């Protein structure tokens, strides 16, 4: 190796990279000048050879191992790690989903259902991805509020904070475009409404919107570009995250006292201390995450998004995903279009100005008695705005939204600048070591509870308009006992088989079941007909095939691999026969319907999982025919139904006692038929329900074990920090602990 620089000349890890990855203002405890990471050389010869040519391992070491992190960080500081974990999870599941998804307007909806039904573990990957977005925002909001509470945006961390705001903006754009991809009703109308925000721009607004759409309305070109950008933006986020972390490592982490560590004595190395703490909390948050994925996967979604996009009909009550609701409320509270849009973007953009709007020199709210109260008031404002965003824009809701919108901006423009001037902060300690141990744990719990509250504030929303002023306005579908409800629910095979008989004898005259194949009837977790029964059922149907050698289309008996043929050749034919109305496809009907359970039920339903609202609704509608109230005028050809939104349903009562013959001795009543067909439709909408709940139980048990082990490992690793030997010997402990 003569001619090459020797180990000695090269040996200055970290410095060679030109990247400083440790806090520049940290001193050495022994008074030996500015802190430098401990020298690091790989032990392995090959790695050393590489290190001399590309000091990447040294960079990783000084960044993720020896990096000095304040020893008094509380659990709120683990959310950066949690966010990184979720970002990676989203990118991995997202890339996998693109392998099966088709970004084409006529095929997108069905390709998502293909993922849910046919792709191996496709349901799991999709639910991980869709709920992962919510977890990402939940963790993001806690991370942001943490920064606000402890003043993490103040000098010298302004750039760090602004990079965070950029990440947040990118997240919002990514989340929005991802929501469009399933091409359901909510997807389509979200795309329409959000892109239309740009039409508020004077003069060029309409041209910009046309440019965004790539057409004269939201259509296939829009979907295509949203898909391309939804794939691109997460990598842009990852890139800004790298800058965010770099900036963080240069200025050093803030901590609950808001006083920067002065010497390395007030820090601990990132690995193992922060690493194990982050990992423990990632596991803990994962339990919440998989609870949503396996037991309430559609809770944060909207039933309407299981209805394919229809450019002709806007859903009666459109709302964005929960994480956009506060901004949506701000938009709607302002009666002027342009001003509303400016307020919407301003409410996010203002975050970037926070380091200069807050004029106080004290960072942490611990030592700012007034700011602390205004902070919680601001959190409350955001949550209330979120709740209002989910409500229809009428009456008192509008008034409240306006007051809260004004307060939102006043917090930034009036409260923060004035507080810095007039508030008398408590005595700030000179160093972390001096700081008094306080009940930070309580603050952590409060912040977590608030974060969860934010999720629920934007929780389930009605599937369709429920607010009609008449006798049955507030009538809710009765709650049933379903065998498949709850964490251990399983379908009742007999019920599914009977339900199929009801579909076969009654519903299929008008309703298609286009996403299902005959083979599904024999698959595990469904009605589980035998192979021979499935073949016999399939053979009853005439399936269009061809062209044959003569170029003609022909009909043949169905085979297990065929889809259920539709009762009508096209939508026009269906409408013509049904008085202008279109009988909906029944494949995902049970997930495309629902009703509002109201507070506190929708919270309880997440803890004791009850997600059978769509099935309840279907059973209720089938039982809900009644004579119309005398004062109600019924359009011609319509029937009165207690549970149908608007109460005028086009479908004549489809069931009557005895109309379907059961061979297993089950009562042949309308109520029984209604329950059986509803259960069958639940299976049709979610054929993997049993596998989901089974795997979910295993995953949750596993995560509880892992989290427990991580907890004790974490305690072990932190033992020396939290209960230093000095204390054991009756001396003043050097460490502060959380």
């Amino acid at each position, binding site marked *: 190796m003569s001619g090459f620089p020797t180990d000695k000349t090269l040996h200055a890890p970290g410095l060679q990279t030109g990247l400083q990855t440790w806090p520049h203002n940290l001193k050495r405890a022994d008074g030996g000048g500015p802190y430098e990471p401990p020298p690091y050389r790989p032990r392995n010869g090959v790695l050393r050879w590489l290190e001399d040519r590309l000091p990447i391992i040294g960079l990783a070491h000084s960044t993720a191992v020896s990096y000095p992190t304040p020893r008094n960080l509380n659990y709120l500081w683990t959310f950066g790690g949690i966010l990184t974990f979720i970002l990676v999870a989203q990118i991995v599941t997202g890339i996998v989903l693109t392998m099966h998804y088709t970004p084409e307007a006529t095929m997108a909806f069905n390709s998502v259902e293909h993922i849910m039904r046919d792709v*191996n*573990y496709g349901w799991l990957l999709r639910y991980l991805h869709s709920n992962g977005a919510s977890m990402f925002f939940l963790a993001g909001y806690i991370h942001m509020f943490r920064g606000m509470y402890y003043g993490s945006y103040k000098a010298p961390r302004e750039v760090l904070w602004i990079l965070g705001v950029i990440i947040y903006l990118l997240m919002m754009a990514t989340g929005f475009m991802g929501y469009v991809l399933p091409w359901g009703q909510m997807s389509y109308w979200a795309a329409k409404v959000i892109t239309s925000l740009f039409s508020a721009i004077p003069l060029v607004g309409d041209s910009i919107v046309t440019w965004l759409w790539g057409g004269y309305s939201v259509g296939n070109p829009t979907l295509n570009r949203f898909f391309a950008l939804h794939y691109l933006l997460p990598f842009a986020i990852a890139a800004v995250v790298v800058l965010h972390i770099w900036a963080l490592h240069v200025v050093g982490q803030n901590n609950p006292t808001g006083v920067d560590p002065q010497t390395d004595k007030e820090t601990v190395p990132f690995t193992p201390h922060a690493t194990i703490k982050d*990992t423990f909390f990632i596991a803990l948050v994962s339990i919440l995450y998989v609870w949503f994925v396996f037991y309430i996967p559609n809770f944060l979604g909207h039933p309407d998004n299981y209805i394919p996009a229809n450019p002709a009909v806007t859903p009666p009550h459109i709302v964005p995903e929960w994480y956009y609701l506060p901004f949506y409320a701000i938009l709607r509270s302002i009666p002027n279009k342009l001003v509303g849009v400016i307020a919407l973007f301003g409410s996010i953009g203002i975050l970037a100005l926070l380091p200069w709007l807050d004029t106080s020199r004290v960072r942490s709210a611990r030592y700012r008695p007034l700011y602390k109260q205004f902070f919680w008031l601001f959190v409350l404002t955001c949550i209330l705005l979120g709740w209002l965003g989910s409500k229809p824009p009428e009456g008192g809701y509008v008034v409240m939204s306006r007051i809260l919108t004004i307060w939102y901006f006043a917090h930034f423009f009036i409260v923060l600048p004035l507080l810095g001037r007039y508030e008398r902060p408590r005595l700030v300690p000179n160093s972390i070591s001096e700081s008094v141990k306080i009940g930070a744990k309580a603050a952590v719990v409060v912040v977590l509870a608030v974060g969860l509250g934010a999720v629920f504030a934007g929780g389930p929303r009605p599937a369709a308009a429920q607010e009609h002023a008449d006798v049955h306005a507030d009538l809710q579908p009765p709650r049933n006992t379903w065998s498949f409800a709850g964490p251990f629910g399983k379908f009742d095979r007999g019920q599914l088989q009977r339900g199929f008989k009801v579909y076969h004898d009654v519903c299929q005259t008008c309703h298609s079941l286009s996403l299902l194949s005959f083979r599904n009837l024999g698959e595990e977790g469904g009605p589980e007909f035998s192979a021979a029964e499935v073949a016999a059922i399939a053979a009853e149907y005439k399936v269009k095939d061809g062209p044959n050698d003569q170029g003609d289309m022909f009909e043949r008996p169905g085979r297990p691999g065929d889809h259920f043929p539709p009762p009508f050749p096209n939508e026009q034919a269906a409408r013509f026969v049904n008085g202008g109305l279109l009988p909906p496809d029944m494949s995902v009907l049970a997930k495309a319907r629902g009703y509002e359970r109201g507070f506190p039920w929708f919270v309880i339903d997440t803890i004791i999982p009850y997600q059978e609202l769509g099935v309840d609704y279907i059973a209720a509608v089938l039982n809900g025919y009644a004579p119309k109230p005398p004062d109600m005028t019924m359009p011609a050809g319509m029937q009165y139904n207690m549970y149908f939104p608007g109460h005028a349903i086009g479908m004549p009562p489809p069931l009557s006692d005895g109309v379907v013959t059961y061979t297993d001795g089950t009562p042949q009543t309308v109520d029984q038929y209604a329950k059986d067909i509803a259960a069958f439709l639940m299976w049709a909408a979610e054929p993997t329900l049993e596998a989901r709940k089974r795997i979910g139980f295993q995953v949750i048990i*596993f995560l509880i074990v892992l989290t427990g*082990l*991580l907890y004790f490992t974490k305690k072990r*690793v932190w033992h020396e920090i939290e209960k230093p030997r000095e204390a054991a010997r009756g001396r003043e402990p050097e460490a502060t602990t959380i």
Partner: protein
Amino acid sequence: MTTISAAEPTRRDFLFVATAAVGAIGAAATLVPLIAQMNPDASTIAAGVPIEVDLTPIAEGQIIKVFWRGNPTYISHRTKKEIEEAQNVPLDSLPDPQADKDRVKSGHNQWLVVVGICTHLGCIPLAHQGDYGGWFCPCHGSQYDTSGRIRRGPAPANLPVPPYAFLSDGKIQIG
């Protein structure tokens, strides 16, 4: 900076090892769906069911191509001469020795069914071409005889015979 002293009871080591092991199991289990999703999905498997082919329109000396599981499958209605050629080749002169009778169904010597994918690198050989009157692969020059056996060129093996059965004299089911 505080570092943990190295000499501690083994109970701690056991805890660390157990945690790492459980974490590794979780990571491995997470890989299962990520890998399994790339295998054929249920609809692809369902579309790969056996197909029936009517042989009656195929004239003697004609070769037709049908698709099964997305792959071209040749059905050759062989002439007397082609059958004789196939049967009379000395087996030890073949790169991949296999008797013609093992490549057709007994009593149906005139019907040869082979997967039309060159065993070299997956191109589709052209029928009725090459020096052996069978198939010739235009990609890299592999030549197959009237029994679909490799005779010359880089391909290592004969054209495979897919699973099939005669439902009647004029109808087969492939798959």
